[in-house]
């Protein structure tokens, strides 16, 4: 069957351009790898994109690093042309220093720190209680 769309060279689009993460390489299960991509909003997540602007590897490597790459020049161009970055992309850009730090990054960090402190104090009081009991 001949795909008429390719014959007509359809290039109209509805919606706007977004900079988002697209999953790459679905051949391997349980090994995700994201491409940072400029695509039209209505396209499938892994479908045809306009341009690739970077990568993101969510699994940490042997040095416990998660590697991210950006093409800042082209990102500037696309944001100048009116592209919207998604939340995770905005967070990553904030961490990289290109954008200001995302507020949720800061709040998440604070929350986690509070949790850790709570757990520490709880553990500390338990230990001290146990210690007292054993002493007694």
């Amino acid at each position, binding site marked *: 069957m001949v795909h008429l769309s390719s014959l007509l060279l359809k290039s109209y689009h509805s919606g706007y351009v977004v900079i988002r993460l697209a999953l790459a390489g679905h051949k391997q299960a349980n090994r995700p790898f994201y491409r940072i991509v400029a695509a039209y909003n209505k396209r499938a997540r892994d479908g045809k994109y306009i341009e690739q602007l970077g990568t993101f590897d969510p699994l940490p490597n042997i040095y416990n690093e998660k590697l991210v790459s950006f093409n800042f020049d082209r990102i*500037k*161009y696309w*944001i*100048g*042309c*009116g592209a919207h970055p998604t939340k995770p992309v905005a967070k990553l850009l904030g961490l990289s220093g290109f*954008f*200001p*730090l*995302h*507020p949720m990054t*800061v*709040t998440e960090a604070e929350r986690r720190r509070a949790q850790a402190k709570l757990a520490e104090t709880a553990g500390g009081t338990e230990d001290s209680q146990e210690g007292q009991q054993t002493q007694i």
Partner: protein
Amino acid sequence: MFRVIGGRSVQAVRLLAPRSAVLVEAVRGRKSRNDPVAKSKEGRIKVPPPVDPVEMVVLKERYSEYELILRALRLEFKEEVLRKKYEEETGSQAEERARQEKEEHRALMDWNDQENLQMLKARILRIQKEEEEAESKTVEAAIQREEELQEFIRQKEKEILQLQEEAKNFITLENLDQRIEEALDNPKNYNFAIDKEGSVVKRTVLQ
């Protein structure tokens, strides 16, 4: 959440043998609008995650700052893109580039014209040579044909002479009687014998 599969897909899938009695596969949104609530979820009230008001105030502040900075960045980038485009089209470099391109184009067109002239000359020479060759060929062909004609005429003349000479020995009405008497007077004997060694014997039984 899990869907029971049966029917046509079962035969192949049964080979991937799950130990359960029923083959299941995961499918999202199994319940439709009118299905009743599950027994384990009967008294459930959905509650959104709790919001800390202090944190919320701080977050709102942070978000407003963040959006401000982001808007400023966006406008900056837009301006940069527009400036780049403007410089591309009507910048200082653009005129020079256009001029250089025109110069190049003119030079190339001149070169092209010269090449065309040279090819024209070569072509004219070639055509002349071909014409001369054709002429010479036709002339040669004409000469050849004339020679053949002459040859033919000579051949015919030779034959005529030969015939004329032979005509002297022809038997005509006047010679008839004479020749008959001559023939009767001189009987010729064509008989001969030859043996295996090749010796010819002309003496035969005379008549």
